[in-house]
């Protein structure tokens, strides 16, 4: 049985988890240009939930996650697979990167691309995999 955390830990966790998640998304998006990327971001995100997991236990973590980790993995892998095909329709080799600049209202533009989709896929897979393992392990612990 996991010992219930102290009050400070509870509070800190509630505070830290969203922050960490935001940070992970930041890492994910800037990864193409600065250190970061799908892996690191995914690991940071799962770190956030790991903290939550140890503080509040498996059941609450599942509730917070809403979505089964297996589906997270599935979605991640599916995104990864999807990024293979757009190039095919362009008559190029599989996985050839495709870029679609989208104009943002502020006059800026953001480049959507298959590598980005791919990186998001990586993010979800890493996140889902780590969560699947940790939740399962903690559940046996609690049983």
């Amino acid at each position, binding site marked *: 049985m996991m010992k219930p955390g102290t009050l400070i830990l509870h509070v800190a966790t509630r505070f830290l988890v969203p922050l960490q998640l935001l940070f992970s998304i930041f890492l994910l998006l800037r990864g193409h240009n600065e250190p970061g990327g799908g892996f690191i971001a995914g690991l940071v995100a799962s770190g956030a939930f790991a903290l939550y997991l140890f503080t509040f236990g498996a059941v609450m973590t599942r509730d917070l996650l809403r979505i089964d980790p*297996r*589906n997270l*993995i*599935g*979605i991640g*892998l*599916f995104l990864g*697979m999807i990024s*293979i095909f757009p*190039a*095919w329709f362009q*008559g*190029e*080799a*599989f*996985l*050839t*990167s495709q870029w679609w600049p989208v104009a943002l209202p502020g006059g800026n533009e953001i480049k959507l691309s298959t590598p980005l989709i791919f990186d998001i896929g990586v993010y979800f897979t890493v996140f889902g995999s780590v969560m699947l393992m940790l939740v399962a392990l903690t559940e046996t612990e609690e049983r």
Partner: protein
Amino acid sequence: MSPEVALPIIVPLMTGTLTLLAWRSNILQKILSVLGSIALLISSIWLLVSVREQGHVVMYMGGWVAPYGITLVADMLSAIMVVLTAMMAVAIAIFSLSSAASSHERFGYYPLMHLLLAGVAGSFLTGDLFNLFVWFEVMLVASFALLILGGERAQMEGAVKYVTLNMLSSAIFLSAIGLLYGLVGTLNMADIAVKLSQVENTGLVDVIAVMFMVAFGIKAAAFPLFFWLPASYHTGPVAVSAIFAGLLTKVGVYALYRVFTLIFNQSPEFTHELLLWVAAFTMITGVLGAAAQFEFRRILSFHIVSQIGYMLLGLALFTPLAIIGGVFYIMHHIIVKTNLFLISGITHRLLGTYDLKKLGGLYKSRPFLSVLFLVPALSLAGLPPLSGFFAKFIVIRAGVEAEAWVVTGVALLVGLLTLYSMIKIWAEAFWKKLPDETDGSALAQPMTLSLTALYLPVILLAACTLFIGLNGQPIYLMAEFSAQQLMNPAGYIEAVLGVKP
């Protein structure tokens, strides 16, 4: 733009992903699994056809030309291996319809199976050394997870050995890649081949070559590195054993064939001579290991080891005919070995055991199954006119023509001992009277739908064995074509790099 070279990887990856997403419904997973494996078969045949027309089919993944990106390359050997993988995929998918326990299905049996296939196909098709490592890992981790499905004591013990020794192999492989990259600064196999051929001091190349030999030798279960195989193969669910037996070690063999024809061909008097001894000992230790066993799947497991020896012998002799023999042997062996494991699964369904002492009476009550067993069993022992005979004949002929008397003698003797083991199974499980303590009530069960699903792949694979035996010419031509390509790596290099070396 030739998508067929990537499809055999993408299709099972996609099937795996979709079955994973469908984890709540066993029925949906089953349907996806069968459809996916059929799609894999179609795409791999497409690949085979275009390889026959073009010689080499190349795709630069991500559009980055070799050697900068990852290149997928299919030559005849790869195409053959992929087609066989797909055939086994179909067989196992059908077999699993009835054999997979629904508890296994809920814990990812189908995704694991298809991702295993993706790993196998990826290993066959990649033209990049590090990418090969990645596909090896995909295959390995999938096989780890499949092996422990069921969570029984024997599985755990087997898995501990299997996982550890294979991880050791991966670490050696990775180290060797690192060293090789340090030397030549590239990962594309064709590029490595070009650059290594310019190296004057072949001694250093030999050192790296030997490291690869050990790494792949572990995967291929060669002597003296095979221990993980007999320790684990007989423990998993039977369909899993079957696909392992058919494909996994062959990936190691394939990798040896690839690197020791393409990359490390500078000093065959050292590397291939070493392989020759490895082959001889692999054959003999494997077959002797089986002689002491008295359990259906254990005997078969040890025989995988000894058969690997024949395949290595083909590579080690390093003559065109020997390579033909090796390739032929691989083709034959994948079909036959998978089939034998599947048959062991049927006997287990009927009598509830793999122990030869407790089996019996199958010839009396199930004559058709007996014939189905005899076909692959005698083929494995190399009796004519089945596929195994021609495979063995070519290898032995190559051995005689190369005047490698000792290994040829060993190969012949091992054939006899293989027959001895197969006959042992036949005499004990089929001919012998059903022992009183064994519950034979399931023996007389009628051909239900679920039993048909078990029989169907066995019949198909036995038909393949017979077909190769009775009409070996097309198979021989394919093997000859691939041997030509393997013995002349210039064609491969040109196809990948676009320049004549």
